[in-house]
């Protein structure tokens, strides 16, 4: 049941906390100058931790607040956890990033922007209202525009941010136009009402399609699904590694959260009885699933194939992240809670492996001053542990046991097989085989080829510790994944759906 505005505030405590710390972090620029330059980082970290505590308090809540604008339900809760973890990790990474050192005077802005982006992501995950969707999306976008161009001394960062902002603004503009059409047709901005409106029928389908496709542009751009992915490689390559990592996880996950919620709440046919347990019907005559399926196939295939050609590892990871978007989309095609839970599980895996990979890339960039795959030659002999970690992450990205990435893929394919999307499953597995090749290219350079110079390069304890924190779950969660699975399965419930 909906809540009054006043009550509602108690449900957005985490967001509020983050907002407060956004300000505080900014303030440190003024007050904490002559104290540790890392003060803003610590402040932001503190903010995330406290917010985290409040988020944990919300476990199990299933509420719709601010008169149906914003849902606080297990689904969004799951994503919030992901965002928090990602945020914390990114902050920790940033502390070691050499690129950011250059702009260390602007740490306050940097970290506050990370917070603001996270806030935006929070709202994206929970918004059940078209306007809300648009606003939160814009919040995330704007923060990321600035972040990607943050080291404005470097030309490529500037270029990245320029492309990003133009492309982003354009896509969101299209999305907005689509929203306006939806509003015009239903007179509603609330997804639930919108659902009922469609259920009553009398919607001009052609217009509806236009609107949906336009909205899809906005969403597709966020999750960088082909053909709305073009900004991704350039921005990922141009932006500072930490930001790239952050975008590749948080903003993408947020985009997915929004996508799933929009389509599920908007188009689920509550009346219809599912054929397979856990599947839900969408309104007859709407073939979103086909669109999504097409997108997913396109996305993973293009992502993988182009990744094969990359020589810059950031760019390679950019394309691989596109491909992964494709994999995740497969889960949504099934239109089943099972598929969604598989997607959620995949996010956990993706968070671990992708951030890990980017972390190693950052470390290598710090010490070896290169992002070129060919310069990874002999890494396995010069910095064994880092190389080992990267190997684990890459195999996890490929989805080979004994890594958690395997479980992620495993459940995606399971969902597909269960709902008889066998052709899609086959495309998926073939893609993962292709992907093996370019991940192996890195591994090959690290181990199979002799280093040019053999001096050992070692990293400090903190680094190794942080890396271990990423490596261990990647393997451990494969050996015992039931908690994650349970969590994912319980998190598919959204407010107002069954």
């Amino acid at each position, binding site marked *: 049941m909906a809540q009054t505005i006043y009550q509602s505030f108690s449900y957005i405590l985490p967001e509020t906390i983050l907002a407060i710390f956004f300000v505080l972090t900014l303030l440190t620029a003024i007050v904490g100058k002559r104290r540790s330059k890392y003060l803003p980082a610590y402040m932001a970290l503190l903010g995330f931790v406290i917010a985290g505590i409040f988020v944990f308090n919300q476990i199990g809540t299933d509420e719709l607040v601010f008169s149906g604008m914003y849902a606080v339900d297990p689904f969004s809760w799951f994503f919030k956890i992901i965002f928090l973890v990602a945020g914390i990790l990114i902050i920790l990474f940033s502390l070691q990033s050499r690129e950011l050192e250059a702009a260390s005077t602007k740490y306050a802005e940097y970290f506050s922007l990370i917070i603001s982006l996270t806030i935006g992501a929070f709202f994206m995950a929970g918004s059940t209202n078209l306007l809300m969707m648009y606003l939160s999306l814009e919040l995330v976008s*704007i923060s990321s525009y600035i972040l990607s161009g943050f080291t404005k001394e470097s030309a490529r960062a500037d270029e990245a941010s320029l492309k990003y902002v133009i492309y982003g603004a354009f896509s969101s503009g299209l999305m*907005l136009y689509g929203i306006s059409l939806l509003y015009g047709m239903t007179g509603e901005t609330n997804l639930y009402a919108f659902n009922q409106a469609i259920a009553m029928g009398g919607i001009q389908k052609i217009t509806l399609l236009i609107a949906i496709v336009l909205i899809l542009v906005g969403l597709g751009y966020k999750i960088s699904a082909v053909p709305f992915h073009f900004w991704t*490689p350039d921005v990922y390559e141009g932006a500072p590694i930490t930001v790239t990592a952050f975008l590749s996880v948080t903003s993408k996950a947020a985009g997915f959260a929004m996508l799933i919620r929009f389509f599920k709440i908007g188009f689920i046919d509550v009346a219809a009885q599912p054929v397979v347990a856990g599947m839900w019907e969408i309104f007859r005559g709407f073939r979103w699933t086909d669109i999504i399926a097409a997108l997913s196939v396109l996305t993973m295939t293009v992502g993988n194939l182009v990744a094969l050609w990359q020589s810059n590892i950031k760019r390679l990871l950019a394309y691989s992240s596109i491909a992964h978007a494709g994999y995740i989309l497969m889960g949504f095609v099934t239109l089943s809670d099972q598929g969604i839970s598989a997607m959620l599980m995949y996010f956990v895996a993706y968070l671990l492996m992708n951030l890990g990979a980017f972390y190693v890339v950052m470390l290598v960039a710090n010490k070896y001053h290169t992002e070129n795959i060919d310069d990874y030659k002999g890494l396995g002999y010069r910095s064994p542990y880092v190389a080992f970690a990267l190997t684990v992450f890459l195999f996890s990205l490929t989805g080979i046991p004994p890594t958690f990435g395997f479980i992620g893929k495993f459940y995606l394919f399971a969902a597909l097989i269960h709902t008889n999307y066998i052709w899609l499953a086959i495309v998926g597995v073939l893609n993962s085989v292709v992907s093996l090749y370019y991940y192996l290219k890195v591994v090959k350079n690290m181990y199979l080829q002799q280093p040019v110079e053999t001096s050992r390069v070692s990293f400090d304890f903190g680094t190794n510790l942080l890396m271990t924190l990423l490596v261990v779950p990647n393997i451990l969660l494969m050996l015992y994944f039931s908690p994650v699975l349970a969590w994912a399965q319980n998190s598919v419930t959204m407010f107002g759906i069954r």
Partner: protein
Amino acid sequence: MNLHVGLTDFLVVSAILFSLGIYGVVTRKNAIMVLMGIELILNSANLNFVAFTRFGLMNLTGQVIALFVIILAAAEAAILLAIVLNIHQQLDTVNVDEVDKLKN
């Protein structure tokens, strides 16, 4: 003689604006002009919202949304201008075509 202006007229106008916006974004080389194109797109949407509210639907949601959008548009414009400024300092050009160092 008073000619009656209906919802459709508004929609048509907004559609035209929308198209013009897209055209601008795609064709203009100058980043500022591209920004203008984007503004056009946003405002065509705004026009829709307002029109829909004015005709048929008797609630104010549309107008409210329009307000929000205007604010956001301003914010976006600010960011973009800042970045363009930055670009100009770095590469001294505002031609989006010449900003293509990042590619395969």
